[in-house]
């Protein structure tokens, strides 16, 4: 473990993003546009208050999944990852560097979308609004960790992008946003119980519906944090110093 290598990697990733104005703009603007669209679609109905907050968690999850899986794939195909792994940098240093950089971006992204939803679009939330932000950032980190992990199984950027519908959409269908998880058949309920996005959405729903920050929120967030760590360690295991 080397804090120097981790921080250098985070700074490098942020510098790359700084050069890529279009990606940066898309990352920050798209969630805001989608939230506005959502509010407009459900104008005059209570639906925006129901799904607005959970989607505040889902958008960064999806975006970060996509960005990191492509970014890591690029490191693999350009040879920079192989070069780095011949240098004194740990695999975890490398992954944490990415997590730090994209995590910082996730904070910014979630802050913009959450601020817009709460103060401009009039999203009603019973619980504290800072908790919305915490959940949104954790969701973004979850997307990042899963993206890092699945990028190991993609050989091309085409394949990496296809992992989005394969890995993200089933979680979206089963996370309780379309049909409450209690209303799912037993089999689907069990499946949704092992998918991390379910807990992320549960936590968001709890924050919107109850003023008290109950223990269920912390349990949900604990599960999400556990999944982030698990996916990061699995991701580290897929980084091979030796290849054929």
């Amino acid at each position: 473990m080397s804090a120097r290598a981790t921080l250098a990697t985070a700074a490098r990733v942020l510098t790359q993003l700084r050069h890529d104005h279009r990606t940066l703009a898309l990352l920050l603007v798209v969630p805001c546009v989608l939230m506005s669209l959502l509010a407009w679609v459900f104008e005059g109905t209570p639906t925006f208050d129901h799904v607005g907050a959970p989607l505040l968690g889902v958008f960064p999850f999806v975006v970060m999944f996509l960005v990191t899986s492509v970014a890591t794939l690029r490191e693999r195909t350009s040879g920079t990852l192989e070069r780095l792994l011949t240098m004194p940098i740990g695999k975890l240093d490398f992954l944490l560097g990415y997590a730090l950089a994209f995590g910082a971006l996730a904070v910014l992204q979630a802050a913009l979308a959450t601020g817009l939803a709460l103060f401009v679009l009039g999203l009603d939330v019973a619980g504290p609004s800072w908790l919305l932000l915490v959940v949104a950032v954790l969701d973004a980190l979850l997307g990042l960790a899963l993206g890092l992990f699945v990028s190991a199984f993609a050989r091309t950027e085409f394949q990496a992008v296809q992992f989005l519908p394969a890995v993200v959409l089933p979680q979206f269908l089963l996370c309780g946003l379309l049909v409450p998880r209690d209303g799912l058949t037993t089999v689907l309920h069990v499946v949704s119980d092992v998918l991390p996005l379910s807990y992320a959405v549960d936590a968001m729903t709890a924050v919107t519906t109850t003023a008290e920050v109950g223990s269920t929120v912390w349990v949900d967030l604990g599960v999400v944090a556990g999944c982030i760590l698990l996916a990061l360690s699995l991701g580290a295991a897929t980084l091979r110093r030796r290849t054929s």
Partner: protein
Amino acid sequence: MTAAAPAIAVDRLSVVRGGHRVLDDLTFTVPRGSLTGLLGPSGCGKSTLMRAIVGVQIVESGTVEVLGEPAGSAPLRPRVAYVTQAPSVYADLRVVENLRYFAAVLGAPPSDVERVLEEVGLTAHADAVTGELSGGQRARVSLATALLGAPEVLVLDEPTVGLDPVLRRDLWALFNRLAAGGATLLVSSHVMDEARRCERLLLMREGRLLADETPAELLARTKRADIEDAFLALIEDSKVPA
């Protein structure tokens, strides 16, 4: 005793890739402080051998030791520098940003960035975005990265390919200076003409070693005037049935 160990010691190394034997029972050593050329036609296994020496290649059998340690082991990572044939630097970063990042990872002093830019003749392009440079310039950014810090062993895969003659001469002069300063360099090329700039030669063909000697010894043994002819003579000789 690691102090007495050769820079690179390869013993009965075989590598299989995709069912094909790419390296077949190679054994040789490279002395410290030498500039050794690894020559052979494209596809003869040069890159695979270099990958095995830096420890990123899964090997079938045999051992590779660098500075007395197993190739690719953690203590070697700050001491061995490796340049792949395709430039492995970040195309979306400026040249200095690339070098600053790798210097930080290596723990090299920040002043190294200026030195290596000078050494590869890219000072004027320091602020250019790497992806917008020509292929040869990008290759030099990749090479500059390997010069950061003070690596004891440099493994350079075709670092001079596609460069203009003046630059090639300058880079070979730099390699000679580094070797004179005590570093060990293994430099591959498929251009036989570059062999005369090396102190020692490893000639490879189809995963086997045809020669491991100085250019003068090779020419004397084959009774030829230039390396290309000597190489051809060795191939003819190896075809003669025992």
